[in-house]
């Protein structure tokens, strides 16, 4: 699915929030590294998709009415084979129906399970005066509590992306602390630039959050993605 078709679908349904499946699909299409994520509406479909993707996988409930998926038992991690995927599918659907009987449940997303890395956030917001602004920070409390984030206006140059990473206070964490290997700074820079390019190409995107992105010694990948588009 192209960005245009996803956008058209969302607008037809009067949505401004893209689903995680849609968001990751359009980002992957734009070259932004994100875990493969597909929508399954049946047990068999989920199993087939998991087989094609390779194990381990994660299953998450897909429902516009359910914001906090884990709270309703709507997330199953580290599924290693076909049977586990089938059982998880049934369990998630049952849990979701029990917890939110009135929510429309579209199915379950099947996702590659990425191994844990250093968590960072790459985001974009639209400032009323300056337009699209990119944000970078370390995941978790560094962003939420300490507001340790850096900003640049879209479009970014290579140098801007490098400075964004270097100027956060938690920067030493990315060089490896407590025996952790250093994060692949070039991969993070590239991801920031790809998101900047994506946003520049699609002015309909108003907000974007890759949270978290796992940074590894080689490479980086977004494991969750959220995109808000403008109203038609």
């Amino acid at each position, binding site marked *: 699915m192209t960005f245009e078709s996803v956008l058209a679908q969302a607008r037809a349904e009067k949505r401004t929030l893209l689903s995680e499946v849609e968001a990751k699909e359009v980002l992957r299409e734009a070259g932004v590294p994100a875990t493969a994520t597909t929508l399954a509406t049946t047990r068999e479909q989920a199993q087939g998709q998991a087989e094609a993707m390779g194990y381990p996988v994660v299953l998450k409930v897909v429902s516009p009415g359910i914001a906090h998926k884990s709270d309703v038992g709507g997330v199953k991690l580290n599924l290693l084979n076909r049977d586990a995927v089938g059982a998880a599918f049934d369990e998630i659907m049952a849990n979701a129906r029990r917890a939110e009987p009135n929510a429309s449940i579209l199915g379950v997303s099947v996702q590659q399970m990425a191994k844990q890395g250093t968590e960072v956030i790459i985001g974009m917001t639209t*400032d*009323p*005066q*300056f*337009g699209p*602004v990119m944000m970078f920070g370390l995941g978790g409390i560094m962003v939420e509590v300490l*507001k340790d*984030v*850096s*900003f*640049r*206006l879209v479009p*970014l140059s290579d140098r*801007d992306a490098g*400075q*964004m990473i270097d*100027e956060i206070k938690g920067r030493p964490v990315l060089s490896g602390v407590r025996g952790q290997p250093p994060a692949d700074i070039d991969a993070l820079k590239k991801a920031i630039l790809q998101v900047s390019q994506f946003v520049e190409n699609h002015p309909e995107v108003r907000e974007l959050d890759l949270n978290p992105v796992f940074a590894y010694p080689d490479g980086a990948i977004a494991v969750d993605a959220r995109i808000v588009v403008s109203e038609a």
Partner: protein
Amino acid sequence: MAVPGHRLDRMFNPKTVVVIGDKGPMYMWCQGNLPFKANGGNLYSVQIDEKEIPGIEALGITNYRSLADIPEPIDYAVVAVPRHVSPYVLKDLVAVSAAGAGFFTSGFAETGEDLGIKLQEQLTSMAREASFNLVGPNCMGLYLPKAGVRFSGDVPVATDGKIGFLSQSGTHGIMFSLVAGAHGLHLSRCASFGNAIVLDVSDYLEYLALDDETEVIGMYVEGVKNGRKFFDTLRMASQRKPVVVWKGGQTEAGARATMSHTGSLAAPQAVWDGMMRQCGAITTNSLDETIDVVQLLLRSKLPKGPNMALLAMTGGQSVSITDAFAKAGLRVPRLSEQSYRELGEFFNIVGGSYQNPLDMAGTIQGSPEMLDRILRILDADPNIDGMAMELSAMFGTRQWKARPDSLDKMLDTLRDHMERSPRPFQVVMHPAHEETYVASIKQKFWERGIPLLPSFDRAAAASARAVSWATR
């Protein structure tokens, strides 16, 4: 030099200036612009109030009762009429094809009341429709020191100005101009632009970026109307010359104050900071910080890196200057082995040190030759990108007062060093107990082009900004 073809060019290089609605007893706008007339410019008044006309004519300024009667094309007008009259004046200015006007008149959207907001909307739509160069309103307008067009009777008339200054606040525009003047530094062109309803900071900034007479640009800004245009213009300007941006309303409380001052909405400070760095602009937080970095940029050479040689007269000051520069992010490295060898040949280490920082009063003993020898060694040191030297008003004043030529000789030595050296140099002198005396000798520094800063903290902050700009 002008910028031919730019929409602000005529206004910034006026041959005919008109003051509209000036009032006694001060006649501040007529008085302020008398130097323009003395320089050969056409200065006229428009005033219909019979009581005011004799006072204006007494200043030697011809008064007309209508703009249409002015015999020359109007390049710039100062509008100081009551707010409800301002739309009529604007209509007349458009009708005579004036090149631009600064509206001193206030009482518009900044009041937050309906009448003010309506009047501002009216001015805005009239000016936009006519593509009229409206400066302000709620501002002091243009200050063109070379032409003699002034927004205050106190600011200097000068032909050697190199600083372009833009200010959303009239007070900061005037005060910067005065304080720069007190530092022996003058402005090329200045605009105080208040509510910025038609021309915004980006329009003026573009002009100053293209203007050859302007070597450094400074600005005080509380908010911008068109963020993207500002971003693009600031980036373009910063590629041509240093642009120092002093942002007002950096705190939540300060941002509330900008709302009632100029009606500016603030972007989150972190977004602003990121944009500044992206543009390559130099950011400051106060008038003093702005003046300090502008002084360094104009008087000192640009640093190639952060490595400082710090020269103090005594031990305690050598520690303090080092802490100040290191805290500001500069480096105070060891000197080269060759420097140590050469300094070791004569340096008095009893009550002195030359490790970097240097504690050197005991070695110099008031001798300019000895000072020169030290400066030459440091200037040849490959580990060093720049120098800052403390002068002690506390210890020096008694001798300088008794023998003024001793001060002159030392300053000549410093001037010769600055002319010879490719590296930045500055003097830091706390006035100590001799404020009046120190104020009286500043001119000696200015005429030799020696930057003088009043404290280690200010000197270090200015150096750090110059380094970050030069190595951006």
